């Protein structure tokens, strides 16, 4: 496995005493989408800024594509692309002018620059809007221009810091598609911080859950969910239970926390799919009729609750208002 990012014991505090990073150690495999999930104020953006060589940690070390971010920040900047939380484009310039100046910052010039700018405008579907001022763009268009800028230097490592925060659901879905396409088409590693469980679940192949400046859990979304005490089995009975259904299921091995409430029956099970036939047979044996059955995999919400010891939404609200990760509260709740 090739390592795209290696961070060791990163710490950074902001006055007055906000410990944004409290000893973060992680490794990112090259060629994957690595998701960093956490509530507001968890330290995601600070971590991203450190890895982008935008700011320095108080202590600890990190390499991106094998380059030390503290000792050799300029080299790091050459191999990365960054799409920040805020729009990075100049509203008083056109899309094309923004891209040209951005390319010039990498020392790209002449025909090479022109063709890269044209390619990237085409890629993000902004050819028609290229010569309009960015202030006339919609939120989604401006975001696509940000992506185009992030890709202009053909980075080996692309950082996306909350790319969908503040976008409407349609633009968000579009962005998800774009990110998947990016990840599939190129030999590029993508770092994606997000505040949305759903987004991490959909896009990331590896995930770190961050809370209060710590990595509290690591793994694939499925692994993380699997570690949270199994699936939830929900059975809706045709008639209210007279006690026999509860009795039948309590005797079954592998079923925990059996709960019956009128016609609704719930139980926790390690693997819902494989337990299901046995459950149905056992109910059938007792002559109990079943109206419907659902197996729910644990969500990342459950995972977060398990590792951070508090619910995601609660953590979000608790977030220190002085935190560097805070956003406008207008974003829809998609957790």
């Amino acid at each position, binding site marked *: 496995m090739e390592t795209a990012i290696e961070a060791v014991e990163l710490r950074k505090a*902001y006055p007055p005493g906000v410990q944004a990073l409290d000893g973060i150690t992680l490794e990112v495999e090259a060629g994957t989408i690595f998701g960093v999930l956490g509530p507001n104020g968890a330290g995601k953006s600070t971590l991203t*800024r450190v890895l*982008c*060589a*935008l*700011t*320095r940690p108080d202590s600890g070390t990190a390499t991106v594509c094998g380059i030390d971010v503290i000792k050799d920040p*300029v080299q790091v*900047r*050459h191999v*990365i692309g*960054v799409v*920040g*939380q*805020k*729009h*990075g*484009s*100049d*509203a*008083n*310039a056109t899309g094309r*002018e923004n891209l040209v*100046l*951005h390319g*010039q*910052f*990498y*020392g790209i010039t002449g025909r090479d620059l022109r063709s890269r700018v044209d390619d990237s405008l085409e890629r993000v579907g902004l050819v028609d809007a290229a010569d309009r*001022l960015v202030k006339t763009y919609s939120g989604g268009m401006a975001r696509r221009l*940000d992506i185009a*800028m992030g890709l202009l*230097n053909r980075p080996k490592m692309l950082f996306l810091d909350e790319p969908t925060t503040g976008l409407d659901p349609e633009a968000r879905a579009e962005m998800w598609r774009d990110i998947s396409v990016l990840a599939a088409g190129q030999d590029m590693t993508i770092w994606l911080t997000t505040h949305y469980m759903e987004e991490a679940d959909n896009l990331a192949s590896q995930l770190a859950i961050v809370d209060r400046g710590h990595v509290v859990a690591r793994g694939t979304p499925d692994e993380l969910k699997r570690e949270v005490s199994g699936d939830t089995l929900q059975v809706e009975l045709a008639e209210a239970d007279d006690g026999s259904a509860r009795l039948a299921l309590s005797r079954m091995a592998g079923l925990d926390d059996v709960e019956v409430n009128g016609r609704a029956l719930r139980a926790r099970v390690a693997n819902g799919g494989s337990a299901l036939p046995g459950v149905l047979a056992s109910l059938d044996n007792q002559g109990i009729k079943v109206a419907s059955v659902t197996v729910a995999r644990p969500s990342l919400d459950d995972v977060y609750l398990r590792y951070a010891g508090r619910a995601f939404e609660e953590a979000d609200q608790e977030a220190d208002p002085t935190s*560097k990760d805070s956003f406008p509260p207008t974003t829809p709740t998609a957790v």
Partner: protein
Amino acid sequence: MTALRQTLQMFVRNVRVLMRQPAYLLITLIQPIIWLLLFAALFKAVADIPGFKGTYLNFFTPGVVVMLALFSAGWSGMGAVEDIQSGVMDRMLTTPVWRGALNGGAVLYSAFTVMIQTVLIIVLALILGADFKGGVIGVIMMMIVGALLAAAVSSLSNAVGLLGRQRETVIGTVSFFQLPLTFLSTGMMQASLLPHWIRDVAKFNPVNWAVVAARAAAMQKTDWGVVGTRVGLLFALVLVSAFLAQRAFGRYQKSL
């Protein structure tokens, strides 16, 4: 080479923004005209004070040039604040662009604007009957002096913008200094008519260095000794200010 090229590219970005805002462009061009007309009319009687030599127009024209340099370059930091608040600054800082270009583009732009404004003032002053005894070379030297002061002030204003990150900080700091620095100079009043303490303070005031140099260059047979020392001081100030602006970038990035 790359450093210089990127500075020019940032400069072009600023000029383009100016061109796109006709109202702002117009104000930039009209302001010097109003200042010269208004102040020359208002203080006309100053020339009648016993001990005042020459016409007030001749005396005050270099003063207006220097005041413009101070006042228009002072707002340079607003651009830095805007870039910080819009996210443009952080995006630029994630690229390998030479950090000096980010300040340098704004500094060049301030110097350039002041040169254009100075040309307008000179033309108007000629129409009004000013007598530039320093000739073409002296007048060009006056423009350079204005541009040097503008460059230094622009760097300092950018540094304030980077450290304060709020428009209010820039507005407060800049307006705190502008008028006192103007009045603690010989821009509007002949040195011999100033209180002693102001004359003493003025020796350390870069605005006064610029006024003295501009006047000695353009309004009399150029006194190269006076011009040379003041230009040297201003040039040193440009370098120190640019260094401080670089430090401010460092502080800004550290705080991210």
